[in-house]
């Protein structure tokens, strides 16, 4: 098990700088998730850590050793890919053992490790099958098994759940969480899905345009976002942003309020709007109201509620849960 430390990592493709100076420390046994919109450089950063992409500048340390310039197989890492990337010509067992075979480890050790991983991931019945004979979820479990068998210092996951359907995604997510607990392994995990990040992470790194916007535990990011980008990215449905002028507040440019912190209250109405759409989810209800200048506002109510489309409603904002942002989008405390 190992720690990871990134110092001022930069990466350019041609003239385009994609990673713009990343500093980060990941402690031993921690599960850190990189989250950010598509194209913000998450995969590139992960591939730099793996040694699959060469950094333009900066230092990478795994377990205290600088690994710049070392080949991927020497870094003591395992990686799980979005597209599974299993070797099509090998059986599940051989897929999992190839890395150790390449490293010339003894046969009985390889067998022991493969059996351990396959028991952990319930793959025992599939060991002699080829990847083509497996379902998507099974393939991804094999890929995870292949990562475990190497007993790496550091696990790297690049959107491992994105190719799975919704139900499998939840299952595999739980599996990865339990894996993390059982192995107490250091993991770096990339996703564009904030729910995945919130549910799995010890700490979340929010990336945008090649820079870190904020690092923190899921609740830190939810409760104390440093800026408008993080506030908007974490939480679902997304935080509502309202021009401060609509609320007659002069000490901010924009005001943010999460859908769950809005209530209906005619007496203390901050805004009135017309219902334009309503989503009944059973457990909770999302109501979208068109509030003119303030834009479309989402209200999330716990439980089941009815509302007529086009009816007028009065919204009350919980003052303590409001966020204020300045012109540059930074949070005002």
């Amino acid at each position, binding site marked *: 098990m190992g720690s990871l430390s990134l110092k001022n990592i930069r990466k350019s493709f041609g003239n385009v700088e994609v990673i713009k100076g990343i500093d980060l420390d990941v402690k031993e046994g921690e599960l850190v998730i990189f989250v950010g919109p598509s194209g913000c450089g998450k995969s590139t950063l992960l*591939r730099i850590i*793996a040694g*699959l992409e060469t950094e333009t500048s900066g230092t990478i340390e795994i377990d205290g050793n600088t690994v710049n310039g070392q*080949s*991927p*197989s020497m870094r003591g*890492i*395992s*990686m799980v*890919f*979005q*597209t*599974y*990337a*299993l*070797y*099509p*010509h090998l059986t599940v067992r051989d897929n999992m053992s*190839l*890395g150790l075979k*390449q*490293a010339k480890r003894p046969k009985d050790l390889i067998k022991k490790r493969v059996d351990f991983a396959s028991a952990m991931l319930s793959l025992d019945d599939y060991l002699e099958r080829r990847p*083509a004979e497996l379902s998507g979820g099974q393939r991804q479990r094999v890929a995870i098994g*292949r990562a475990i068998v*190497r007993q790496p210092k550091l696990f790297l996951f*690049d959107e491992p759940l994105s190719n799975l359907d919704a139900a499998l995604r939840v299952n595999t997510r739980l599996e990865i969480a339990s894996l993390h607990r059982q192995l107490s392994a250091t993991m770096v995990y990339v996703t564009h899905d904030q729910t995945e990040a919130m549910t799995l992470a010890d700490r979340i790194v929010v990336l945008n345009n090649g820079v870190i916007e904020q690092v923190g535990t899921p609740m830190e990011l939810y409760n104390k976002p440093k800026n408008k980008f993080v506030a908007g990215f974490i939480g679902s449905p997304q935080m509502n942003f309202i021009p401060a002028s609509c609320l007659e507040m002069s000490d901010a440019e924009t005001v943010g309020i999460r859908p769950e912190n809005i209530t209906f209250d005619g007496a203390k109405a901050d805004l009135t709007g017309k219902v334009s759409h309503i989503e009944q989810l059973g457990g909770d209800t999302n109501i979208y109201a068109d509030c003119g200048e303030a834009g479309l506002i989402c209200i999330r109510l716990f439980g089941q509620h009815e509302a007529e489309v086009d009816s007028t409603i009065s919204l009350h904002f919980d003052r303590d849960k409001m966020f204020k942002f300045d012109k540059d989008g930074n949070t005002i405390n």
Partner: protein
Amino acid sequence: MSVDIKTTARSQVTFRAIAAHAILITYTLIALFPVFVIVINSFKSRKAIFREPLSVPTPETFSLKGYETVLKQGDFVLYFQNSLVVTVASLTMVLLFGAMAAFALSEYRFRGNLLTGLYLAIGIMIPIRLGTVAILEMMVASGLVNTLTALILVYTAQGLPLAIFILTEFMQGISDDLKNAGRIDGLSEYTIFGVLVLPLIRPALATVAVFTMIPIWNDLWFPLILAPAEETKTITLGAQVFIGQFVTDWNAVLASLSLAIIPVLVLYLIFSRQLIKGITAGAVK
């Protein structure tokens, strides 16, 4: 009403299928006709060939004289062997070096990558025969005239541009993740190329093989110029001995041409099976 729409739609589909098949069958007939004429006439007596060139051999007109002449001319086996050696060796080199170059061009980012690719592809547009004089001079200088090596080298050069062009396109489509997984497991670049990438581009390799093989097998130009000696003659050149300035032994010419079809046909069948296997494997996945 809805039933009507369905039936019209279905009859439209049937009509399209029939039209497509009609066109394909016509094309096949046109393409096969010369081959058919060559093969049937190779089994007929000389008189019958000229009297009724389009009729199939009957008991009266049947004759194996052409084949006897060809096989009695003991060198024919040698010509066959030369053609096979040249074709198979060139093909192997074209596929191997073409695939390696394509892998480098598609996989590695280096200065001049694009330029190298363009340079290698320009060969598609410039016929190698334009350089015949220079090639002959080089072969003379290096003492390779009248060797099969000369032919193999020229054909390899001739086949590479198209091979590199097609294979590069295909290789760019192969998932980076798979290659990266191999790198993390400690596979060498050669293993990644040979074990992970090559099997995935098998359909492309088969296509390139067929397109490379036919012109080499049929070529008359370079064997005539670079290797006309008796012991290095290829089958197409060898068949020319029966075409004289004054008399032509048509039986023998047709028989040798018929025989010459067999090896390419076999090679083609091997490659096309690979081709179909590759396509269906991709579809099932």
